[in-house]
């Protein structure tokens, strides 16, 4: 039986792993190559790099990070952040990434996802969705796509967007709840479940993991195919191996 995946995420800023709590309190969590190696040893199923480097002259650092990681870590690697053209995608794949995450560029021009998946194959294209709940408590739930780290609304409905992007060739969805990201309150399970039910491609739940039960809930209640987390792994609170043991103890199929 196919295992549910655990994916540690490394936010990389100018070549260092950082993790902000709701995008403010940035703490330094180390050298990305070293961190990736550690997660690989702990049994991570994949590793995701999110490049949050703001200055364009430091953009190349992520390419070198990926190159270095890919020559010693032999599990799937995904890179997101700042991917705007097919050329950007090729650079990442040539550096050793297996998949790229596309976010704002798709919002700006949805056809980009079509062109990208035609060129490099759907299996390489992960659509990153940053969604925020916009319905009030007495309404049926509704989520909207946000860009720019959750600051800019787009008016696009998250469910419609997920469906459209998979029709355009996105091979996987990385779904982040902007309401939960950095809070450690757990995934927005209703959002996760709704998107998982709406699309046929695998969905990775992200945003809000504070303990190991949250990871398991993302699978059992949210119906996600994979779960992504950053801070619970970065600061040594839990290892990926512990997370897997815990998920297994809750009856979830994992690669041990």
């Amino acid at each position: 039986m196919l295992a549910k995946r655990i994916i540690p995420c490394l936010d990389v800023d100018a070549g260092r792993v950082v993790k902000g709590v709701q995008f403010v309190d940035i703490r330094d969590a180390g050298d990305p190559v070293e961190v990736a190696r550690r997660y690989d040893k702990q049994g991570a199923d994949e590793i995701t790099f999110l490049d949050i480097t703001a200055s364009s002259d430091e953009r190349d650092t992520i390419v070198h990070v990926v190159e270095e990681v890919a020559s010693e870590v032999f599990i799937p690697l995904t890179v997101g952040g700042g991917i705007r053209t097919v050329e950007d995608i090729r650079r990442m794949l040539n550096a050793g990434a297996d998949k790229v995450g596309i976010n704002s560029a798709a919002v700006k021009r949805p056809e980009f996802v079509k062109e990208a998946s035609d060129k490099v194959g759907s299996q390489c294209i992960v659509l990153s969705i940053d969604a925020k709940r916009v319905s009030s408590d007495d309404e049926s739930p509704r989520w909207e796509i946000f860009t720019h780290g959750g600051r800019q609304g787009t008016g696009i409905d998250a469910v419609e967007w997920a469906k459209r992007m998979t029709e355009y060739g996105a091979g996987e969805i990385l779904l982040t709840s902007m309401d939960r990201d950095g809070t450690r309150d757990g995934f927005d399970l209703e959002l996760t479940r709704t998107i998982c039910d709406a699309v046929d491609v695998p969905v990775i739940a992200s945003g809000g993991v504070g303990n190991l039960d949250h990871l398991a809930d993302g699978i059992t209640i949210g119906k996600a195919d994979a779960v992504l987390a950053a801070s619970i792994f970065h600061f040594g609170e839990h290892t990926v191996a512990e997370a897997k043991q815990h998920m297994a103890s809750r009856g979830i199929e994992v690669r041990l």
Partner: protein
Amino acid sequence: MKIAVIDYGMGNLRSVSKAVEHVAPDADVRVTDDATFIGAADRIVFPGQGAARDCMAAIGDHHLNQAILDAAHNKPFLGICMGLQVLLQRSEENEGTDLLGVIPGEVVRFPLDLNQDGEKLKVPHMGWNGVKHTMEHALWNNIEDNARFYFVHSYYVQLQDEAIQSGSTDYGLSFTCAIARDNLFAVQFHPEKSAHDGLQLLKNFIEWKV
């Protein structure tokens, strides 16, 4: 030892070559479409990604049909992912595509109503799944039966002669994920992305005495 990783422009071969270099640090590993080097190489790794029709067209564009056919018949040859599928005769993909025809059989898509224990299964089959050894083989050395490997695919091979199946995987149905015949071994999963067991399989391939 010369190892050719055949490059016909389909997919990123860096991770394949890096993984091979990792297990064979003294070998001359080249990502190449040079038929002469392929002809002279001691071992061949034949990866591939993408749609069947594009793969076949790319093999043709690189004038590699004959070099691949020769290698598949006369030296240790490891097919990976599309490098397994294009060895068969025909694929359903792209309204039907003729393949290289090295192995009798077809490539078919996972059915749309695929499910397990009442739960609908997603296609592509993406992630880590168990590989059951259905044959004893040198490439399974030091790899446990049912160890997990990383898969990404929507189509799978149906062999005419089940006797050459060397591994199977369950995903709503049981499908052939590895084949072995004489000097040839080919897998649907990605050993170069399958951590320790994947590297072990590549190492076994490098050490394999046909």
